[in-house]
């Protein structure tokens, strides 16, 4: 599904090499390598406190590198001794807490980067108005941040970033306060821009579904270090360790040999990951239903089997009750790599 324009001859939009960032004496980013090609969206997926915001700030030039370097469009932007001013970097950023200016109303906020780019006041405001409309807040153009709801504020912050037409978007949990409809709309708009301008995006999020949905590649961040870089489906299906498996979705582990279960990916004795959608009802494995959780579009069952506890996910409402006996089969497994 990735739609990367062929820009391989060009330098990557972003390349981060061995970046180290400290707060005080504590290293918060510890030697991160990251490359983002033009037109590519990379999701930065990590739990709270893993360093997503810090890494984005370093790329934007707000925080100095203690070691390593950051190149933007092939040119050195940050190293441990030099740094290009943030405004001279080809970036736009959506801040986790929006970073809205209390004294400017929505339209002037969005017009701000346009004015800085030399647009006249009226031209800037006209374009800003369009962007606000696109995010369904055109009618709030004259409001200041204190008069807007959380999601409305976030959209103003988004519109401001879109207004800059940069070559790289740094998006720090840009949809945390948006509903599904708005989220989808935004993703579409961003995809269009990547396509049209060859812009790249780094999209920081703690939400697996979002990461898997938006990204061409996913970077897993843990305690300031990169744990895994992969395509969304591989991040989900082929995690490098248990922590990565847990972060990217519900996970059950079985130890031993699962050849007998006849699952795809079984390969001798070892430790196996089983995702809930890899287990189906019906089959030869007797199972007792331990817990049932209805989650709207799907139901999660916790089963106890001879292989160990498993989780099974199925669309639709619950079909079994707690305590019921039934059978299931494991269709697929992933053998966890042994070292790391």
């Amino acid at each position, binding site marked *: 599904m990735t739609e990367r324009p062929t820009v391989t001859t060009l330098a990557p939009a972003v390349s981060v090499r061995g970046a180290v960032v400290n*707060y005080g004496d504590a290293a918060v980013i510890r030697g991160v390598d990251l490359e983002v090609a033009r037109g590519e969206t990379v999701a930065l997926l990590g739990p709270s406190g893993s360093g997503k*915001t*810090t890494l984005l*700030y370093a790329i*934007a*030039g*707000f*925080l*100095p590198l203690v070691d390593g370097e950051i190149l933007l469009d092939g040119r050195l932007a*940050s190293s*441990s*001794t*030099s*740094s*290009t*001013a*943030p*405004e001279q970097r080809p*970036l*736009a*950023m959506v*801040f*986790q*807490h*929006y*970073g*809205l*200016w*209390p*004294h*400017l109303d929505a339209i002037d906020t969005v017009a*701000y*980067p346009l004015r*800085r*780019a030399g647009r006249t006041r009226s031209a800037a405001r006209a374009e800003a108005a369009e962007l606000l409309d696109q995010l369904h807040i055109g009618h709030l153009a004259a409001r*200041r*941040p*204190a008069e*807007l709801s*959380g999601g409305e*504020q976030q959209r103003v*912050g988004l519109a*401001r*970033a879109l207004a*800059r037409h940069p070559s790289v978007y*740094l998006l720090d949990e840009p949809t945390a306060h948006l509903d599904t409809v708005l989220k989808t709309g935004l993703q579409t708009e961003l995809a269009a821009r990547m396509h049209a301008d060859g812009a790249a995006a780094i999209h920081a999020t703690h939400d697996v579904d979002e990461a898997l949905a938006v990204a061409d590649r996913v970077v897993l961040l843990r305690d300031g270090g990169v744990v895994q870089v992969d395509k969304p489906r591989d991040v989900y299906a082929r995690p490098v360790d248990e922590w990565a498996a847990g972060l990217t979705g519900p996970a059950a582990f079985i130890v031993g040999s699962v050849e007998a279960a006849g699952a795809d990916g079984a390969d001798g004795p070892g430790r196996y990951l089983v995702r809930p959608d890899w287990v189906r009802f019906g089959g030869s494995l007797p199972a007792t239903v331990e817990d049932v959780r209805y989650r709207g579009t799907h139901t999660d069952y916790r089963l106890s089997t001879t292989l160990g506890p498993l989780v099974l996910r199925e669309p639709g409402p619950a079909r079994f009750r707690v305590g019921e006996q039934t059978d299931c089969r494991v269709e697929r497994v992933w053998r966890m790599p042994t070292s790391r």
Partner: protein
Amino acid sequence: MADRDVLAWTRRLLPPAALAVAAGLLVVVPLTVLARTALEQGLDVLLDAVGAASPAILASVWTSLAASALALLIGTGVAVLTERTDVPGRRGLRLAMLLAFIVPGYVAAMGWLSAYGPGGFLDDTLGLAAPALLGPLGVVVVMGVEASPIVYLIVVAGLATRAEPDLERAARASGAGPTETFRTITLPLLRPVIAGAGAIAFVLSVTSFGVPAVLGIPAGFSTMTTSIYRDLAFSSDPGSFASGVGLAVVLAVGAALLIVLTDRLMERRRTERSGAFSGPSGHIGTAPRGSVEHADGGSPRRWRALAAGTVAWLLVTLVVILPLLGLLVTALARAPGLAPLPSNWTLDNFREVLNAHTWEALANSVVLATGAAIGVIVLAGLAVLARRGHGAGLTGGLLGLTFALPGSTLAVAVLLAYGAALRDTLAIILIAYLAKFWALGYRPLAAGLDAIPADSYRAARMSGAGAWVTARTITLPLLRPMIVAGGLIVFMFGIHEVTMSSLLYGPGSSTLAVVVLNLQQYGDNGLTAALALILAVIVAVASLPLLGRTGVLGRVGWRR
């Protein structure tokens, strides 16, 4: 249960009641008495007096407007340099601003004269003199410089409370350079603070007597304060006292109206912070302060900082250091008119100044200034908290009234109101100080409120804190930089206040400024200069710990 109810009620009602009582005693009563005195001769006489004084009023207003504009320029500029940039010598700049503060207006004017005046030491040594110093230009410049430390302190505190690094980062990420970010984001966010500082600078200039007396009169340029003085001092007319008072009241009412007007304007333009306090702390858009010069890239930035630093130092040298040097030369000179050569210098002035009298007066001044600083902060805190309810404009205006009264008139008012019981005591001086300086504490505090998002209060209420507990545990701590700035300003004013204490003191309650004044009349500029310098040294030494890397107010801010 009933006991607890009563207790709760008392706790809830005590602060507003205290505020009402204080406002009544410090503002309403003295003003009422004054108004009665002013109308002794009837309204016609008063109106005639106002009519006759109108050229002087006009002169006062325009010089004060110009002076406060200058003060805003200098104060804000230096504040930004010392707090938001890496210019070399920031500590020195901070110290210089404090020094400019401690020298009372009339002494400063003297210092300017002996530095730049015809026959000043620059004239003697380099042949440089600025004859325009005598006249409106000099009055404006010296009053402006005099008021700039106050603006400086308030803006520094404002920068500390308004530290929202993400807002400036967002501007940088939108393509604005540091200067443009400052102009379009930082400055507008400080607008209420700057307006508050401007109001103070304006009123100080309007009520300034020393500077126009020293620099205006020789050029035949008189302002409101000097002409009130003329009317009061040399009139055989028994009504002149009343009309002098009347003029002063008119002046105060005018200034207070101006303040209310700006308040109104600001109220509409409130820029309350919304949402979370965002973004990691640290130097905005650049490296955290103290680390390697980073994010703005190597040399251009360094050059810019160097250039800005040079300009700032040049300015400070011109407006602070040279006048102080002028004072030093005056203080050291054996007699006026001698060439500034070591052979003509003596320490006699210093020796004479440091007598037992001075020490006693210094002790009184410190006690009064400390009392005033603490009292004003408490009162200002109360007023600011009450402001969140109703009558915001009223409070600001009321406090503006007593602030804008010339010191001598306010002293008369306090003496009229409380003299029968309290005359000759330190207490009556303290009352006058509180009435006069209340606004000095109130303004910065009120301006600081803007930087606090409403959710901060709501979160406290939701945690079970009542309105006043919220004030104590949340609002006031968040205003801490403003509180310190306000307290410092009041303290400094208390130390060199002249007019009110010279009218109100009694046996054992003379203040340092009274001693200075007593030396000065017919006396000796040398002695005055010496005393002012000693004061400056004391203040400089005492404030050294405040000058660290984090800045005068940085360390009391809530950002580490």
